[in-house]
């Protein structure tokens, strides 16, 4: 006898598909932010399912800081090829070269904040009125208060004090010309849900999410990869080889690895279930600047 009950993953999937379909039905020109990270991989997987059997009726946008892991860029290109979708790349390097943004003079300085300019430029040039992002409310305190349909003004800014109430599954998509929405179908997912879903659906991920050998060095208690954009300075300890994986994927300059032997989603789930440190706290130098780091960047137009 059927109990007519969905598992928590199937309920989250049904909610996300409903959200994605509302966007496709009510907006002129959607796009999906695809970084190659696990959340955006799950988001893309859900978008493909929501639109099936149609091809994805909107492009994916990648803001390329120029400091990405090469494995992630290769993965991005593979996914785009396999799924037959349109990819738009906004290059932070090109905006630096054109003099639109100025990089911090320290070699290997983070380009996290610089992405905001490039992101907003690409969105404005494309005239996108709804942009899917893979943000989750469990990631961070400011995100815990953001709506699933989050209105951005003409400057791409988020204003937490004037957020519209969001009730039931009825989403108010009305907006003025020039304004757009960021839409977060994974709002109610946790890191553990993402991994369980990756396992259940066999969602492909970049290989750096699983344990591998890599040259790393310690800085501020974090394990950073030795690479073209992140070299140990004389103040850092000597690099060493370790078996590591990544819990989040951002720039090589600010994303830290954790020591791990997990090579499958199941093993990652086991490690995640007993982890005592949040994924952003463990691995993202960009969120450590101030208590309100994420809120500030979101106000300026960040993802």
């Amino acid at each position: 006898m059927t109990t007519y009950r969905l598992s928590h993953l199937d309920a989250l999937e049904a909610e996300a598909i409903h959200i994605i379909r509302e966007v496709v039905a009510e907006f002129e020109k959607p796009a999906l932010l695809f970084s190659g990270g696990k959340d955006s991989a799950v988001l893309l997987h859900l978008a493909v399912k929501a639109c099936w059997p149609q091809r994805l009726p909107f492009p994916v946008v990648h803001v390329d800081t120029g400091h990405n892991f090469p494995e992630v860029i290769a993965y991005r290109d593979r996914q785009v090829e396999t799924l037959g979708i349109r990819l738009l790349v906004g290059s932070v390097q090109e905006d630096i070269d054109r003099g639109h943004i100025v990089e911090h003079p320290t070699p290997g300085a983070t380009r996290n904040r610089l992405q905001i300019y490039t992101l907003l430029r690409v969105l404005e040039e494309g005239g996108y009125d709804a942009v899917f992002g893979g943000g989750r409310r469990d990631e961070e305190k400011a995100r815990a208060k953001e709506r699933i349909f989050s209105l951005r003004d003409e400057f791409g800014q988020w204003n937490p004090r004037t957020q519209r109430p969001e009730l039931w599954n009825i989403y108010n998509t009305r907006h003025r010309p020039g304004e757009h929405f960021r839409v977060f179908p994974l709002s109610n997912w946790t890191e553990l849900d993402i991994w369980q879903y990756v396992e259940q659906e066999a969602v492909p991920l970049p290989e750096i999410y699983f344990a591998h050998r890599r040259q790393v060095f310690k800085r501020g208690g974090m394990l950073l990869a030795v690479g073209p954009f992140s070299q140990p300075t004389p103040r850092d300890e000597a690099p060493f080889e370790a078996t590591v994986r990544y819990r989040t994927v951002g720039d090589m300059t600010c994303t830290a690895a954790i020591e791990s032997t997990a090579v499958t989603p199941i093993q990652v789930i086991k490690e995640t279930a007993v982890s005592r440190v949040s994924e952003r706290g463990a691995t993202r130098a960009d969120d450590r600047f101030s208590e309100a780091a994420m809120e500030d960047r979101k106000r300026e137009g960040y993802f």
Partner: protein
Amino acid sequence: MELLRFATAGSVDDGKSTLIGRLLFDSKQVFEDQLEAVEASSLARGDEYTNLALLTDGLRAEREQGITIDVAYRYFATPKRKFIIADTPGHTQHTRNMVTGCSTADLVVLLVDARMGPTEQTRRHATVASLLGIRHLVLCINKMDLVGWERKRFEEIRREFDDFATRLQVTDLTYIPMSALEGDNVVERSREMKWYDGPSLLHHLEEVHISSDRNLIDFRFPVQRVVRPISSELHDFRGYAGQVASGVVQVGDSVVVLPSGFSSSIEAIETADGPLNEAYPPMSVLLRLSDDLDISRGDMLCRPHNQPSIGQDLSAMVCWMSEEPLQPGAKLWMKHTTRWARALVKGLQYRLDVNTLHRDQQAAELVLNDIGRIDVRTTLPLFYDEYRLNRGTGSFVLVDDATNATVAAGMILRPTT
């Protein structure tokens, strides 16, 4: 694993943040770095103890002013269930947040300070929960340590609230004596209150029976999108995408399309993972019909002998959420299921005093956080059910056409005709 969504509410200082902090911490959802950050902030603010409220106060203005502005969503899981908490702020004027938090909740946890007993705000929150169709209400009588763990006090509060609750439509009311600070009856049963033989809060949340709350009787399928892929192998494909709002649908079932009234039957229930034999809420599926009919977004599929009300005039309870008052004559946008219509507020029948449940029929307007009964006429016919019987087809939002702000949450009442 099943999902349970619940909302929490209570007055300022009744220990709600401590309770949530403890649920998260004891179920290992608070990470060490988050706790360290909170400890550092508490120290910087000059708090005498680690202020667990800082775990949930996400925005700078909230931390600076020491208040919570907005609904915050929190997540934790036990081996039995995954939980989503809508944590609603405590101050008096935030009915709006309570309505928002309750709209997606299965259950509401209300905190009461054992020394004070139920306050005006407890009654207000319980009333809102009841209006929003919440079937399960849990009253946590907190700070029992400060009244000597006394059974007599607990029973007094219980009797007092029982009297009030008889006027509400809550079918399952549970009382739990507790000390969130000491951890008694939050996750573990209390050692101090041997006289209490009920479950701890967490145990109750894990076990409370919610699957009968859904409406599995009245099949309603608001059409979200018509899917017609342009490709050679799928050129005859025409599917209707949507989320099952209520009821169960099976392949072969006869259906009626509203508003056209045309009949057909379910040819297939499709998903990206393959076809299904049946679909039920809250599944997102594609339905294919055995006939080619003219169907568009905003239409509804239902069973021939079980149809919703159809009409342009309806009566509803609304919670007003805008600084600008609502007056009869207002013209607004309405979104109901997947349908947008223009709505004219023809009349205000009464304003409900949520503390006394008194109906003020002299009220001329609804101001921010007011709840009242209105009559509305819409430009398009709506396919609706009474909210109490069907959340999916009984709810709507009103949107201001100048600012595009969401200004009201509406719950449709039984047609009076």
